[in-house]
């Protein structure tokens, strides 16, 4: 795999060809998902129509975690092999992950309003999502706080390493804290054991948001590569 992206030119051509295809696929799947979500699937007997928020909320939650694992994977890859592509990917992923976490938090609180009557509930998942947002903010701060790009990359990958090890501990301790703080709030919201008619739109929406994430990632990676080319040219002009 590594040798396929052996040099930036080949990688650039590859991504340029894939990028429009993926974003159109995302649009098509989105329309399909919406159709299935609103037309084909029945409302939930307990929650009524608000269960349709799940088709958006659950994929965003999955992606906020998946993107952090992508960043962590690139961080490990970067520290071991010192490959600039890994630094570029982890730098490009951080803002997208933060946006997904913000989306999850907002939709989660909107979903909580009808079921619990308040906008914000210290539910285990929402709290750990909030902490994940702080980790993303920390990552983004480290990414942009150094003038020398290579130094900020290395420090950000080290921070990602700490985050990866601590994330399960945080999730587990928040779950434990939540059961202590508030008896297990049994609600459809916790683990939706849903029948097939709701599963289909969920997967279609997940796949469409995945394609959307890939296309944004490719755009940001291209921008990152060009940014570094400009830095090198500026450096040469300085000499």
């Amino acid at each position, binding site marked *: 795999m590594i040798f396929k992206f052996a040099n930036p030119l080949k990688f650039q051509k590859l991504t340029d060809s894939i990028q429009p295809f993926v974003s159109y696929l995302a649009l098509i799947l989105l329309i399909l998902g919406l159709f299935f979500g*609103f*037309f084909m699937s029945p409302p939930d007997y307990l929650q009524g*129509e608000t269960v349709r928020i799940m088709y958006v909320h659950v994929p965003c939650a999955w992606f906020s975690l998946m993107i952090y694992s992508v960043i962590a994977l690139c961080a490990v890859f970067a520290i071991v092999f010192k490959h600039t592509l890994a630094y570029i990917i982890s730098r490009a992923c951080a803002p997208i992950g933060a946006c997904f976490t913000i989306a999850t938090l907002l939709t989660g609180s909107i*979903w909580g309003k009808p079921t619990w009557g308040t906008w914000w509930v210290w539910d285990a998942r929402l709290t750990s999502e909030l902490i994940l947002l702080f980790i993303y903010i920390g990552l983004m701060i480290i990414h942009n706080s150094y003038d020398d790009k290579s130094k900020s990359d290395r420090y950000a990958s080290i921070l990602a390493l700490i985050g990866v090890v601590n994330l399960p501990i945080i999730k587990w301790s928040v779950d434990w804290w939540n059961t202590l703080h508030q008896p297990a709030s049994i609600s459809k919201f916790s683990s939706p054991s849903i029948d097939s008619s709701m599963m289909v739109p969920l997967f279609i929406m997940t796949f469409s948001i995945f394609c959307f994430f890939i296309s*944004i990632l490719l*755009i940001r990676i291209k921008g990152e590569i060009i940014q570094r080319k*400009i830095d090198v040219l500026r450096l*040469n002009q300085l000499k």
Partner: protein
Amino acid sequence: MKNFLDFVNSGEHFSYVLSSYFIVFLILFLIFITSSIKTKKLEKEFASLSKNEAKK
């Protein structure tokens, strides 16, 4: 089709669902637009830089 009609006139829930979809697509659209604008700006800058680099 019946599901959609029940959904439309489901009163309070309709506004919650619609606003959450609106928020998610707004955020995704925002990040898509900002990153593509940033990339285009960088491309122009790089083109101009490499042009006068070649001129020198």
